[in-house]
C-alpha cells in the first residue's frame, strides 16, 4: 500500500468480503462509478473498521487554490457501530494543513475532512453512498476555489474539545488580567467568562492578546503547551516563554494564596486572524481557550520548582528553581471551544435578519405587545422604550410573555428585565406609567421624537387618537397602531406614512368603512358573550376576552414581521389578518388609505374623506339635472371637536328628487344604518344630511335647506351631538355645522 498511516492498515480484501454494510455500499458505489472514482481498494482493519481507498478525480481550475490537486487519494473509514458518518481522510503526505472544514487530530496526517454539516442521525435514513463520495469531491472542488468556507464560519478548523466557554458578546472588554470562569450549571462543562470573582472556581484564569495569524494556523489538536507555542506569540515571544514568565511572576502570589494552589490554570488567547495573508486587517479575533490538566501545585511539584516542607504544612520554592520554558512546554492541556454569548447582533444573524439598532417606542405590553417585543428581542431588532402601567395578574399568564414569577410586578419592568437578560444588553427601557397621563412629559416627548416609529399596541382608541392629534406638529415620528379584534382572531395594523399625510385617526375611520364594505369582515367587531369574561378589577364591569394563546402567538408573529416591513417602507397602510380556525390558515385583507380634506374649520374641524366625496359626486352626476342626497355617516371626537365624514347612505327609492329640491326617503335607511353600527361596533354614527344642487347653482343653503338644518340641529342637539349639512355643487361642496 502506498501509505503507511495506521488508520488504514489492515488486510486488503475483495468487496464481497466487507462486513460493514455501510462500507460495502460505499465500496460498490465506488466500483460502479469509475469515471471519477479511481483505483478502489478495500481494507479490513483489525478493530473491525473497514476502509475504502480511492483516488478521486476532481473538477478543479488549472491552478487550484489551497494546494488541492486534480486527483486526490482518499480513505473512507466505516465503523461497525455505524453511529456517525464514515471518517474521510486525505492521504497525500503534503496535503495542505490548517484548511477550514478539517477535523484536527493528534497527528498532522492524514488530514481528516469534514465533508458534511449534517447530523448523521438526521440523514442516516436516506444516506446515499454515491452522494457521500460526491460530497467529498465537492469538498475538494470548493476548497480548490476557496469557496467551501462560508463567511460567517469560524476561520479555524474544528477539534474535539473538553467543553465550552461562553465569551461575552462585548469580548473586546475582557480584561485579560482579571477575569473568571464559572460553570453555567452544576457539573457542567460549559463555562461563562465573567468579570465578577468566583471564589469556588476550580480555575485560575489569565489571558493574552496574541499576535496576528493567518487562517489555518492551528494544524493539529493541541495536547501540551508546546503544541500551541509553535504558533502563538505574544509581542513576538512564544507562548511557552510568555507563560513561564507569568508563572514565575505569580509564584509568590500562588504560594501566599493557598487556595490557588489547588486550581488548574485556564488561559484565554485572543488571536486576531486574517482570512488570507494578503489581507491588511484581521477578519476577526478567535478566542483560543485551554486549561491545564494539572493544578498549579501539581505542576510546580512535579517539575521540582517547589517542594513541601518537612512538616508537610506548606509549600516553598526551591532555591534557584523557577518555571522554565521547557517545564511549561510539557504541561498537558485540554482545549475548550469558545462561543460568543447571545446578543442582539447574533440574534439578528441567527434569525436571518439585518441587524438593526433603530430606536422605537412601544406603548402597551399586554398579550400582543409583550409577545411582539419578545420576538423583536429574539431577532435582535431595535432599541426600545416601553410604556405601560399595568401589573401582571394571574389571568394574564394565559397570554402574556411573562411568567408566574412576575405576577404582581409591573409588566414593563419585568419584561425589560427579562428581555435585557435574554440578549445580555440594554434592549429595552421600561417606563411604568399610563401613557395618557405622561404623554406630555419632557422625557416622553424626547424619546418619542428620537424614535424611528411609535408603535401603539395599547389596544386603546384613546391612545391612538392622542397620538394622532395631540402633539400637533411637535413630534414628526410616524405612528403605527396594532390591535386584535375582540375575539382575538383578527389582527389589525394601521400604519401612518413616513410624512404623516395619512394620520392614525384617518386610518382608523377608513378601517371602519373597510369593515362595512368588505363582507368577509362584517363579524370582525362582533363580540358575543361567549367570548367574554367579566372581571371585577378596575371597575365592576371590566370585561376580558376569551382569546386563545395559539391565535395570539400566530398574530404576534405576523404583527412583528409586518411592522418591521412597514418601518422599512414609507407608505401608509391598513391591513387586517384573519385566522381561519377550520384549516389554520391566515387571510390578509387590505385597503389603500385615501386622502382627506378639511372642509370646515372653526371651533370644530370637519374632515371629509375624498373617496366619499367622489362617491357623492358620482351620485349627483347620475341624477342630474335632478337633485339627490343622502345621510352623512362618520365619527365624532367630542374631546377634540373633530368630525370625520367618511360614508353615506344614498337616497333610498322613496326619495323625492326634483330639479329644484330633494327630500330624502326612509326606505331601508334605518336598517342599513343599524347594520353599519353593528359592523363597526357603534364607532360610526349619524352626522347629518347632504344633498346636491343642480348645475350652475351655488352651494349656499336655500331657505328650505336652512329649515331642514334647523330641524336636524334641534333633534341632535338634544342628544349632545353637532349636526352637519352638506351641499354639493359643480366643483365644490359646502358644509354647515350646528352645535
Amino acid at each position: 500500500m502506498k501509505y503507511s498511516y495506521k488508520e488504514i492498515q489492515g488486510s486488503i480484501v475483495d468487496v464481497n468480503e466487507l462486513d460493514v454494510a455501510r462500507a460495502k455500499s460505499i465500496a460498490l458505489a465506488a466500483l460502479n462509478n469509475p469515471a471519477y472514482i479511481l483505483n478502489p481498494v478495500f481494507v479490513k482493519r483489525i478493530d473491525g473498521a473497514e476502509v475504502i481507498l480511492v483516488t478521486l478525480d476532481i473538477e478543479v481550475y488549472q491552478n487550484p487554490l489551497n494546494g488541492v490537486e486534480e486527483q486526490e487519494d482518499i480513505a473512507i473509514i466505516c465503523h461497525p457501530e455505524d453511529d456517525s458518518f464514515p471518517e474521510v481522510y486525505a492521504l497525500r503526505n503534503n496535503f495542505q494543513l490548517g484548511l477550514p472544514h478539517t477535523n484536527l487530530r493528534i497527528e498532522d496526517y492524514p488530514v481528516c475532512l469534514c465533508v458534511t454539516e449534517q447530523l448523521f442521525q438526521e440523514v442516516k435514513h436516506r444516506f446515499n453512498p454515491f452522494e457521500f463520495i460526491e460530497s467529498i469531491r465537492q469538498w475538494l472542488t470548493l476548497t480548490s476555489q476557496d469557496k467551501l468556507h462560508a463567511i460567517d464560519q469560524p476561520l479555524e478548523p474544528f477539534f474535539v474539545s473538553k467543553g465550552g466557554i461562553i465569551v461575552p458578546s462585548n469580548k473586546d472588554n475582557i480584561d485579560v488580567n482579571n477575569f473568571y470562569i464559572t460553570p453555567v450549571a452544576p457539573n457542567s462543562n460549559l463555562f461563562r467568562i465573567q468579570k465578577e470573582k468566583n471564589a469556588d472556581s476550580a480555575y485560575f484564569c489569565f489571558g493574552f492578546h496574541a499576535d496576528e495569524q493567518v487562517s489555518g494556523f492551528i494544524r493539529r489538536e493541541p495536547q501540551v503547551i508546546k503544541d500551541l507555542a509553535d504558533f502563538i506569540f505574544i509581542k513576538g515571544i512564544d507562548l511557552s516563554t510568555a507563560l513561564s514568565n507569568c508563572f514565575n511572576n505569580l509564584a509568590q502570589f500562588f504560594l501566599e494564596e493557598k487556595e490557588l494552589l489547588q486550581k488548574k490554570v485556564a488561559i484565554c488567547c485572543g488571536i486576531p486572524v486574517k482570512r488570507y495573508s494578503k489581507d491588511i486587517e484581521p477578519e476577526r479575533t478567535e478566542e483560543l481557550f485551554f486549561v491545564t490538566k494539572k493544578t498549579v501545585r501539581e505542576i510546580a511539584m512535579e517539575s521540582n520548582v517547589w517542594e513541601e516542607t518537612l512538616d508537610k504544612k506548606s509549600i516553598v520554592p526551591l532555591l534557584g528553581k523557577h518555571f522554565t520554558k521547557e517545564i511549561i512546554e510539557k504541561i498537558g492541556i485540554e482545549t475548550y471551544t469558545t462561543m460568543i454569548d447571545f446578543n442582539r447582533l447574533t440574534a439578528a444573524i441567527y434569525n436571518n435578519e439585518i441587524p438593526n439598532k433603530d430606536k422605537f417606542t412601544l406603548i402597551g405590553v399586554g398579550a400582543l405587545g409583550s409577545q411582539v417585543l419578545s420576538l423583536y428581542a429574539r431577532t435582535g431588532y431595535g432599541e426600545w422604550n416601553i410604556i405601560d402601567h399595568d401589573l401582571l395578574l394571574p389571568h394574564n399568564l394565559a397570554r402574556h410573555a411573562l411568567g408566574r414569577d412576575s405576577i404582581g410586578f409591573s409588566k414593563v419592568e419585568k419584561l425589560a428585565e427579562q428581555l435585557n437578560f435574554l440578549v445580555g444588553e440594554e434592549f429595552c427601557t421600561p417606563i411604568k406609567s399610563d401613557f395618557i397621563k405622561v404623554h406630555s412629559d419632557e422625557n416622553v416627548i424626547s424619546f418619542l421624537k428620537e424614535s424611528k416609529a411609535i408603535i401603539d399596541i395599547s389596544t386603546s382608541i384613546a391612545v391612538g387618537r392622542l397620538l394622532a392629534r395631540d402633539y400637533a406638529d411637535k413630534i414628526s415620528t410616524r405612528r403605527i397602531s396594532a390591535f386584535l379584534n375582540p375575539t382575538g382572531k383578527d389582527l389589525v395594523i394601521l400604519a401612518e406614512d413616513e410624512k404623516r399625510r395619512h394620520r392614525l385617526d384617518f386610518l382608523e375611520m377608513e378601517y371602519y368603512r373597510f369593515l362595512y364594505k368588505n363582507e368577509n369582515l362584517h363579524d370582525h367587531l362582533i363580540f358575543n358573550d361567549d367570548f367574554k369574561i367579566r372581571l371585577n378589577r378596575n371597575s365592576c364591569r371590566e370585561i376580558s376576552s376569551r382569546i386563545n394563546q395559539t391565535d395570539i402567538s400566530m398574530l404576534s408573529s405576523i404583527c412583528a414581521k409586518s411592522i418591521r416591513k412597514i418601518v422599512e417602507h414609507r407608505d401608509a397602510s391598513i391591513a387586517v389578518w384573519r385566522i381561519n380556525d377550520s384549516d389554520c390558515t391566515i387571510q390578509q385583507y387590505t385597503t389603500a388609505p385615501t386622502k382627506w380634506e378639511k372642509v370646515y374649520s372653526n371651533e370644530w374641524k370637519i374632515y371629509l374623506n375624498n373617496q366619499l366625496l367622489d362617491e357623492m359626486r358620482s351620485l349627483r352626476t347620475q341624477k342630474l339635472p335632478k337633485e339627490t342626497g343622502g345621510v352623512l355617516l362618520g365619527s365624532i371626537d367630542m374631546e377634540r371637536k373633530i368630525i370625520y365624514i367618511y360614508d353615506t347612505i344614498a337616497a333610498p327609492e322613496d326619495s323625492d328628487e326634483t330639479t329644484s329640491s330633494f327630500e330624502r326617503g326612509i326606505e331601508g335607511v334605518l336598517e342599513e344604518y343599524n347594520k353599519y353600527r353593528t359592523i363597526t361596533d357603534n364607532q360610526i354614527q349619524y352626522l347629518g344630511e347632504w344633498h346636491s344642487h343642480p348645475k350652475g347653482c351655488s352651494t349656499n343653503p336655500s331657505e328650505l335647506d336652512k329649515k331642514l338644518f334647523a330641524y336636524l340641529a334641534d333633534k341632535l342637539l338634544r342628544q349632545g351631538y353637532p349636526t352637519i349639512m352638506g351641499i354639493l355643487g359643480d366643483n365644490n361642496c359646502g358644509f354647515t355645522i350646528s352645535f
Partner: protein
Amino acid sequence: MAVSHKIKFYPVDNGDNVLLKLDDKTTVIVDCQMKDCEENTDGVTTYDVKKDLIKELNKDSKNNPYVDLFINSHPHNDHCLGFEKNFYCGSPDDYTDTNRKNEEIIIGELWVTQRVFSNDLCCDGGAIRREAKRRKKLFEDNSAESSKYGNRLHIIGYNEDDTTVDGLHYVPGNTVSTFNGKTNDYLSMFIHAPFKSDLIRSKADEDENAASIVVQMQLRTQKNGDIKSRIIIAGDADHYVFEQILEKSKKNNNKDKLEWDLFLAPHHCSWSFFNDRPYENNTEPKDYSLEFLDYKNAGANVIASSKKIENKKPNPPHHSAKEEYIRKVGDSKFKNTAINKDEKAPEPLIYTIDDNGFKLEKSAIAASVGIMTSSTPRAGRN
C-alpha cells in the same frame, strides 16, 4: 455574472470536432467528424455531435442554426466527415424548409487553406471545396454578397503562387479578432501555419496534413484585458511544422504565441508530432517538439481527440506519444476524448474558461449532491 467561455472536444474516435462558445454567444467550430452510426467498430456508442451542436449554436433571424466561424484545418475525412450532410452549402438566401428540417448549420465565415481547392479530395472535402469556391467566386466577382453572413471566406496561408489577396487571406503572423463580420472582445487567433514551404511540401507529397491550419486561440474575459487562456489547435500538423513554428515565433519575437493552456495533440495523438513515423524507426522525440511543449502554462492540459490510447496497433493514437505528453504535463493533465466519463459511451471534454483559467467539467451525475449539501428540512431544534 462573470464572463465564462466554453470549449468542447467531442469524442469522435480518431478525428477532430471542437466547439468554442464564447460568453457573448459567438461560436467557432474547428473541423468535424460527424457520424451517423450509433456504435463504432469497437462497440462504443457514438456521441451525437449534431444534436449537441444544435443545442449549443445560435439561431439566426430566420430561426436557422448557424456557427459564426468554421475552421477546416485540412480537408481530410477525419476533419470534415459529415460536412455535406450537416452544414449548409450554398447561398444563405436559398436555405429551404428542407434544409431547415435537416437542421443544416449555416457557416457565417469559413476558413480553409489553399489546399482545399485541389481536386483530389475526399467526399466531404469536396463539399468544402465547392462551398469555398462558391464563396471565393463571390469575392473575386467583387460581389457585395461576399461580405455577408453565410458567404464570408478566408483562406489561411498563401496561394499556390505564393501570393495573397487582401481581404481574402490571413497568413502566419496575423492576429485575427474579427469573426463573421464582428470584432470580438474575448477571442483573437494568432495564425501560426500553414507556411509557404509546407503548402509546397503538402502538394508535392500529396499530404494535406503538412498544410494544416495551426492557430493559437487567445481568450479574454474582458475587452482589452489579459489573456486568460491560450488554446493551440493544429489539425494534423507534424513535427516539421512545429519546428518552423518554434523557429519563426522565436525569431519574430512571438514566444508568447507559443504558450498554451490547452493543446489539442496533433493528428490524434500521433507520433508524427514528435518524429517521423513509424515510431519503431524514430523513437527519439525531436528536441524542438519537446521544447514546444515546454511553453505550457501551469496546469496545462493536453487533449488527445482519438480512440482510446492503448499500447498496440493500429495507430495513431500512439501510446508512445501519450507517454511523451504525460512526461511533460503529468498523468492527470492528459485527457483522451475516447474515455471521458464512460469508455463505452464517451462524452465531450468540456472546459469552462473564466477569470481563474480553465476547468474541466467533471459532474458525475446530474443528480444533486443531496443530503450532504442541503440542510435538513426540519429546523427549530436550536
